């Protein structure tokens, strides 16, 4: 018996518990909405979280395809990076998975002496937290870039049209008389 197998077998329960813990980081009314509204277009936050954590769980018990994990994790971080969370709260939901695995699988881990593998899995989760932090920073930088770009775009064309930009030009000299 391996934890990775247990993770696959109990994927549904683990995903549900992890999802519940994540949405409980929102106010109660919001958490209820995130849990109950099943329309992916009416509830993009809930859908993105549940879709993303399922992929993470699949990969954690499988190949750890970082490209795939990154794509789905980024979807979640992209939302939390601009919601009302501190940086640690925005990415800290990753660590909640440790709590879920320890609670959900403790009896099996204990009975089968799987603590070595637990350490490996938890190290992988730490890795996920690391890449999540990179994603968080990239999202914040993107926001600042957008702010700067918007300011520039709003005025650049009009300044250009009003001849208020003086771009470097090579002056054409009239050499005909020489």
């Amino acid at each position, binding site marked *: 018996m391996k934890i990775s197998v247990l993770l696959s077998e109990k994927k549904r329960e683990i995903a549900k518990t992890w999802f519940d813990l994540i949405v409980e980081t929102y106010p109660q009314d*919001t958490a209820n909405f995130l849990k109950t509204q099943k329309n992916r277009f*009416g*509830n*993009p936050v809930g859908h993105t979280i549940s879709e993303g954590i399922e992929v993470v769980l699949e990969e954690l018990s499988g190949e750890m395809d970082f490209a795939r994990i990154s794509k789905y994790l980024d979807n979640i971080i992209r939302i939390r990076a601009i919601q009302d969370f501190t940086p640690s709260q925005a990415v800290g939901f990753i660590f909640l998975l440790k709590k879920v695995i320890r609670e959900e699988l*403790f009896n099996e881990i204990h009975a089968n002496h799987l603590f070595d593998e637990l350490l490996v899995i938890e190290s992988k989760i730490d890795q996920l937290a690391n890449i999540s932090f990179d994603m968080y920073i990239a999202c914040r930088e993107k926001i600042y870039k957008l702010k700067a770009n918007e300011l520039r775009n*709003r005025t650049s064309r009009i300044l250009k049209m009003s001849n208020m930009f003086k771009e470097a030009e090579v002056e054409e000299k009239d050499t005909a008389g020489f």
Partner: protein
Amino acid sequence: MAIKPKPNELLSAINYAPPQKQWMDNPVEFKKGYYCYGAKPKNLEYIGFPNGREWNSADQDWKLVDNWKEIFLEGMENLLKKFRSFRLFMDICVRCGACADKCHFFIGTGDPKNMPVLRAELLRSIYRRYFTVAGKLGKIAGARDLTEDVFKEIWYYYYQCTECRRCSVFCPYGIDQAEITMMGRELINLLGCCTDWISGPLANCYRTGNHLGLQPHTIKSNFDYMLDDLEEHTGVRVEPTFNRKGAEILFVTPSADFFAEPGVFTCMGYLLLFHYLGLDYTWSTYASEGGNFGFFTSNEMMKRLNSKIYAESKRLGVKWILGGECGHMWRVLHQYMDTMNGPADHLEAPVSPFTGTKFENAKSTKMVHISEFTADLIKHGKLKLDKSRNDNLNVTFHDSCNTSRGMGIFEEPRYIINSVCNHFHEMPDSTTRENTFCCGSGSGLNAGEIEELRMLGGLPRANAVKYVKEKHGVNMLSCICAIDRAVLPPLIDYWMPDVGVCGVSELLGNALIMPGEKERENNLRGEPLPGMEEKGEEE
């Protein structure tokens, strides 16, 4: 014996769950990126608004006038008397919750006070306290005192509503949160607490006729620049007229179409269409703004800014008015202009000079939407079009809140797109037509300082675009709104880059086969047309 790891060992000190309190007991917390800067006194003074002062919305002290509370309550009493709908909306909500999860700001931010029911309750609690008998009971009756913190809370959340009216579609009583927000903002403006982003355009518009304060010569030179580009792309020199008396039609569009990308490409589409038709029309450098930020401020200000349209049509002696692609501009024109500044007896009921179609729906306002006008032309086979010029585009269409929920324009833009493009894909039904999701930046919320709020407000829209991008390879999001054209590009850029944003008239301009045109190699953006990529490289 194995050491049993404690499940909460690592996490015992971490509790992300927010405290559970009743909404009244949760005081407002101003979060950076979620609120606008305050209005500058010079702008308020220019439009004659009271209580302007130097103040900062991030400060604790807003420097409100001493009798601010009396002003607010007296203002509320006046509004309750003047607008029966306001009193009705304050009275009839049964808190069924049908609206709760329909607001894009609630869906995106997850902040319960962005549920429309709760946003209305912020003001209702004041109504109950001061204007109902039961309100004397206080909290039990859902009433509370008006304090400075309560006023700030109203301010904070009434500038987190884009007046999009999606919630009202689902309300069994038809309570229109947009109107409640309008009332709340009227009260806010009595205390000089407008936002900088709204008050600047208000003052400019009142002075020069448009948001940026462009004067006639600047508008003209902006057009020259655009006309040069058009000539380069099509080989046709378009020569529009300005302030020409005796023209048959006055054309009014948002000023963003003159100077901001991608709006200018939409404007190029209008210019080509009118030139193609030989339309007897004129632009106005005074009625040079279809947009009306008064709509986001007070009904009186909306009326004052709107008045220039009929006034200019009278001065120029035109027969009727044609309007460009804009959202809130059309809400004002369609729902308020006629009763605010009409009747426009100096104008005639609009008739298309090319098809003879009488625009019955505009018989009273005398103003026709460009999409109605264009769709009618196409329907009557009046335009020669080459759809293949848009073959590099997989297009979807965003219904702007105001043109869809505000006036029911659903089919015309789709008909145009399908006539000028070969690849059109709808977004899911629950996100289009009357169910459309807002861009997240309407009603004066397209300010740079609230980028985070705008990205979250636009999340449900972006999410649906992402879906069609992944499913159908959509790479162009079309719309008929100038604010959309300004705010959707950064929204898309944040959530899923590589989808462009355009006006429907830009797509038309690409496809329109102009008489006397040269071999078209570029689209209106100067990018190679499908099949012309190599030619561009050779050059």
